[in-house]
């Protein structure tokens, strides 16, 4: 009994601290780092540039217009091919600063400085200067985490805008993604515009993704094309977060389900 008591006196505090640390670490894991992200956002605030609300709204409005102007200019030449693009381009949305990158290089994520207080929900679409960037996967009151389309796990059903040949893209952890076609001999050539298809269950159809850079028709089992994303993912600073019209239909849906059924 005495020995037990002595051991407790010597190691009790240490044991308590270890179990406390374990509990805190588990809690952070379960909440997906919500507290850490909020703190990170708080510390990051001075560097993001905090301006009074009216000015901020005006600034973001100007930024939004600038973004849309560049987007429209760059897309104007290709708009004949991109029929229906203007209609499906999400108009209302929140402009959010990118305050952080993924905490590990195996995941392609960014952290935004706006969260549920600004109306952002899980599943919302994130777009940048000229195309889609990714999808919201976690939201805290003031931050949100985006899974980029360049992540290997984010597979999106896409289509070649000119010839309507379908396929899906697979992230390659850089500014390039690989598009795999469902058909053996697709009509595709470098320079073709790629946009999301109606097979995609997570993104609405018709959003611009990128431009075909090179094509490999001999690739087995399916022909592949390397697509250059139209958004500079590695140097994102501001993005637009907009509601996802497909969210209500299939919040639990997995891209692959649609791809598998279409491919067979």
């Amino acid at each position: 009994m005495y020995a037990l008591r002595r051991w407790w006196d010597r190691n009790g505090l240490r044991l308590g601290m270890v179990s406390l640390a374990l509990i805190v670490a588990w809690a952070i894991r379960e909440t997906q780092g919500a507290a850490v992200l909020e703190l990170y956002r708080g510390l990051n605030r001075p560097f993001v540039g905090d301006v009074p609300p009216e000015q901020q709204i005006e600034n973001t409005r100007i930024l939004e217009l600038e973004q849309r102007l560049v987007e429209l200019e760059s897309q104007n030449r290709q708009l004949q091919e991109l029929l229906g693009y203007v209609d499906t381009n999400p108009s209302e949305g929140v402009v959010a600063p990118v305050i952080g990158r993924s905490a590990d290089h195996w995941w392609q994520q960014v952290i935004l400085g706006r969260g549920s207080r600004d109306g952002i929900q899980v599943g919302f679409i994130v777009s940048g200067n000229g195309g889609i960037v990714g999808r919201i996967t976690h939201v805290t009151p003031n931050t949100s985490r985006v899974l980029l389309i360049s992540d290997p796990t984010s597979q999106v059903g896409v289509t070649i805008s000119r010839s309507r040949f379908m396929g899906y893209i697979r992230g390659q952890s850089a500014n390039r993604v690989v598009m795999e076609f469902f058909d053996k001999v697709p009509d595709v050539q470098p320079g073709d515009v790629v946009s999301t298809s109606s097979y995609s269950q997570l993104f609405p159809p018709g959003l611009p993704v990128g431009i075909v850079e090179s094509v490999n028709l001999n690739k087995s089992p399916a022909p592949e094309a390397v697509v250059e994303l139209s958004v500079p993912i590695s140097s994102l600073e501001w993005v637009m977060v907009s509601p996802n019209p497909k969210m209500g239909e299939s919040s639990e849906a997995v891209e692959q389900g649609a791809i598998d059924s279409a491919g067979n």
Partner: protein
Amino acid sequence: MNTLDLSRLHPFTLRLLNYAVIAGSVLFCLLLLPTRLPGMEIISISPNWLLIWVVAWSVRRTAVQGAIAGLILGLLQDGMTSPTPTHVVSLAIIGILTARLQKQRYIREDFISIALIVFGMAVLAETIIALQFSWQNFFADSAELRRNLGQIWLYHQRVALSSAILSSLWAPAVYYPLSRWWEQISDLEQPQA
């Protein structure tokens, strides 16, 4: 000067202060994870700060202590990214291995050897994660978790090298202040024990 101030503290206060330093440095590393300051990235890959912390912690401790640190920091990194696959395995193994290295016997205690250890451990950690991804690739029923096997190992080559180089270059920034602090603490606790 600093040592004098510390020695005047009550042992219990000193211990609490030590715990605060430990928790604070972990939090600092956690907050560094999503930042990309200039000079901190090669092809958009940044140093693995938690791995550096685990190595700095385990170098002068037992394997069990290293494993516990790896477990806790692995859970934290899971929280910052995605819980599948978990980082607990890689960080715990690195904690155990670093503690088992018995540095004082084979390698001299300096920045170069710490940088070397971090280099090797970073490569090992990325390999373990890549193995976990491959494992998941075979057994995952949800397609969302599945990655292309060839792609995993292609990416692993790129990630392992740049992460190892960057982590070992930045290792002294975490290791030096922490090891100085723990040296002082152990100097102060030694006479009483």
